[in-house]
């Protein structure tokens, strides 16, 4: 199980929860599990999010491993210029 | 029925001839008729200097001159700056000082700087900056460019 921190604007899709626990071993599984737990999150996640795992910001790298003690934050999608 | 104009000129010491539309600029003629693509079109309005060449020793924006006006003139472009296989000190110093990043403004700046040093072999930093004010660079902030020009000028004075 991993703990995922959501941003406060997503509260209304998760019955007010800001920290959600799901079963996952990779970032991709975690995102799928979030949508399974809270289907209203799907359009937000589909349109793209970045994830910070243990302080490192990742975009589109769904193979990255997550562990029970990983610090995970969902963020607005980042792109550079 | 062709309205094209026949032009004979000297470019980088070589005699050339080409046909151009009366509306074509010298820049168009150099790039599309003579395949000398070193001079670039950055703006087409004489504001960026990427098209800089010299005509009878005078620094001009080739986008502001017509191809037809080249008749009988001596034109020097970036392609003629190195003598044989030997780079001009400015070219060498630009590489040494990392005075280019994307490099698209580099030909224009080199042509302009060469023209400056021919007129004034010992310019101050301010004089170099004002002479090159007509050559835009978006990558470097000009610092290393100015250093390269000053360094080349010093070397050329020493060799003289």
């Amino acid at each position: 199980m991993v703990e995922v921190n959501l941003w406060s604007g997503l509260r209304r899709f998760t019955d007010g929860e800001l920290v959600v626990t799901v079963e996952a071993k990779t970032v991709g599984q975690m995102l799928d599990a979030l949508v399974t737990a809270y289907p209203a999150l799907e359009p937000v996640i589909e349109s793209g999010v970045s994830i910070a795992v243990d302080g490192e910001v990742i975009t589109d790298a769904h193979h990255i491993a997550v562990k029970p003690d990983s610090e995970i934050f969902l963020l607005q999608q980042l792109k550079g210029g | 029925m062709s309205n094209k104009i026949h032009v004979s000129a000297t470019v980088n010491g070589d005699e050339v001839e080409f046909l151009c539309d009366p509306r074509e600029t010298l820049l168009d003629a150099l790039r599309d008729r003579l395949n000398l693509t070193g001079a670039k079109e950055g703006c087409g309005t004489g504001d960026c200097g990427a098209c800089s060449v010299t005509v009878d020793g005078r620094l001009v924006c080739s986008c502001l001159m017509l191809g037809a006006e080249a008749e009988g003139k001596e034109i020097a472009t970036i392609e003629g700056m190195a003598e044989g296989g030997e780079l001009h000190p400015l070219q060498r110093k630009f590489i040494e000082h990392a005075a280019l990043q994307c490099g698209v403004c580099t030909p224009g700046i080199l042509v302009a700087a060469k023209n400056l040093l021919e007129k004034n072999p010992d310019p101050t930093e301010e004089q170099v900056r004002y002479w090159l004010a007509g050559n835009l660079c978006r990558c470097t902030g000009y610092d290393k460019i100015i250093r390269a020009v000053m360094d080349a000028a010093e070397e050329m004075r020493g060799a003289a």
Partner: protein
Amino acid sequence: MALDEVKPVVETGESYDSNKEFKYVGTRPNRPDGLDKVTGRAKYGADHAVANMLHAAVLRSPHAHARIVKIDTSKAEAAEGVKAVVIGTDLPEGLTGGDLHLQENTLARDKVYYDGHAVAAVAATSALAAKDAVKLIEVEYELLPHVIDVDEAMKPDAPVIREGDQGPTVPEGMHPNVVNYMEFGHGDLEAGFAAADLVLENTFKTEATHQGYIEPHACVGQLGEDGKGEMWVCTQGQWFIRKMCAAVLGLEASNLRVTPSEIGGGFGGKTTIFSEAISLALSRKAGGRPVKLVMTRSEVLRATGPTASTSMDVKIGMKKDGTITAGSVEFRMQGGAWPDMAPTGMALNCAFASYDMPAVHHVGYDVLANRPKAAAYRAPGSPMAAFAVESLVDEMCRELKLDPIEVRMKNGAKEGTKASYGPTFKQIGLMQTLEAAKAHPNLQAELGPNQGRGVACGFWFNHGGETSVTVALGNDGTVTVSAGTPDIGGSRASVALMVAETLGIPYDHVRVNIVETGALGFNEPSHGSRATFATGKAAVESCNQAIKEMCRRAAKKWGIDEDAVEWKDGAAHPAGPNAGEFPPMTIKKIAQSMGRSGGPISGHHETTAGGVGESFGTHVVDVEVDPETGKTTILRYLVVQDAGRAIHPSYVEGQYQGGAAQGIGWALNEEYVYDDMGRLQNPVFLDYRVPVASDLPMIDTVIVEVPNPGHPYGVRGVGETGITPPLPAIANAIADATGCRMRHLPMTPVKVLKAIKERVNG
């Protein structure tokens, strides 16, 4: 597949120790493409010509918002030299989301959304013939009301630009032009403000600016009846161009081969397509003849992707001793007439990133306006956010009579700080940049009348991204690297240095080629400050793979175990005295016999690169403001920034100086000016005034190195952070010089003079 059967590839969490002495990394050799670029030999987007080539010209809307009633292309089709004409309805239907937006921006379908929006295009036998023909296309428009300003576009009576694009998080009842909403934060905001001795809040605004690359977009596209095509194009990312053109035209990706030319600047503006797909569409209609499409400068400014204009509210609470107790922001940004283009989310994430915030709250709106489709511009969103927050922090320092550097050191983010955007920072270098700035001689320079000094910090996340690299051994022991990230600022040199270091061979024995889409797996563009980081990392891993194979060949030749061979100084050696007495086998020797010993040797690595390290910076600027004209002259400019490790220090310095120069232009001069019909008034370099050589002094740089454990050589991307501090640093310096706080960029002489006069008159 059960969850526990998945074996995730652990990229994050890998740790490299790069604290060593290096032979090549950190030196300043000549860049490998230097000769081509100083002689005019290097070929950029518009420098390519092929047989049978046609030339394109594009017809663009003169209206900010209108319905297209009718387009009559018959006269153009009949004109001299014209071989093809295309309009929006010639492109395939059925696209959705981002692909649809790209297609709509390529050629308008039933509506035009901004002044300059492409409506039709012509391919003819000469550029002049195409330009003449395009004027013969007749378009009937039904004008619609338009809106340009971001705050105006949110009001209930604002003209509706698009229906049905509102994102799922936008609160009920907001205007359809508000397409996205973000909210996040942590801590007790009320308590935080209550604990402060001073709470200030203010609104800051910035105008749209353009990346201003000197080379306009240019391509030569060729597309046959069979759906197979080629493109030569100046781009930051050839795979993105391929992906986007394929989407817009309904092609299969592998049937389109995109070759990158040298690129004359990008800064984010060349990571996407604008008119490129038009050249392919024209080519197909012209029976597969190649079509050259080169944008004019006016087209670039009117119809490519500037950055957003913004309206930002900031509120900060600070104690008398300088401790920040709370902060909140609301950012409103417009990214043109399409959703998902304004960098609001990233701006919010960056806003307080340099600070340890016990309580912080962020709200952001992404708004539509009748302006061109915005594109990324160097650290998208971060400069605007820094302008707002760093200006307010400075105001508070002045009011509480505190030193701006000391306040930042007191509150600055460090390893272990909970970032304003949530996660915990690992190793970062903000403090080190503040220390270095504090110790720099520029801080000792005496300031005279009408002169002032400003300080600000800046931040960018940096990016890893999809990367694919091959390192191949030549038969003479020299090495070719095939990389996918176009070289915008000297990255060929950095990659060559890292490969030389890893293999232990001379820098001159490494050649880096930037290859076309058919030669490697997918590569993200040179953006997000990722080229040296990600391509470099993949190149190093590729070398490691090749080294393993070369050691294996030596082991086989020597008849010993593979594990008993090590690689050092460009050769395979027996590892230790027990392995046996064999003279080292050099890379050259292995290469010469590789055909016989097992076949060609190369290493390949592809990944979505993890291990990214953030880059923080501190800038200090001294200005003089002329009280009679309001003109600001930059006297001294210092950039201090954390590079992790500077592979080629000259090109790292170059990024620092270039970012500062763009920031200076953005702060003092650059803006998009519109008339009341929503038409861009300054689409030429004369009136869109970027800094020239006589505007700037030498730009001092200090490279701080806090190595990134996620990269074999400690690299942190550096390209973007440099543009984030200048906006507030200069505003702070002007405040110091004049007593006037400028809250609306650019700080042109007219605006500054007005502020000075108002202050003098009380």
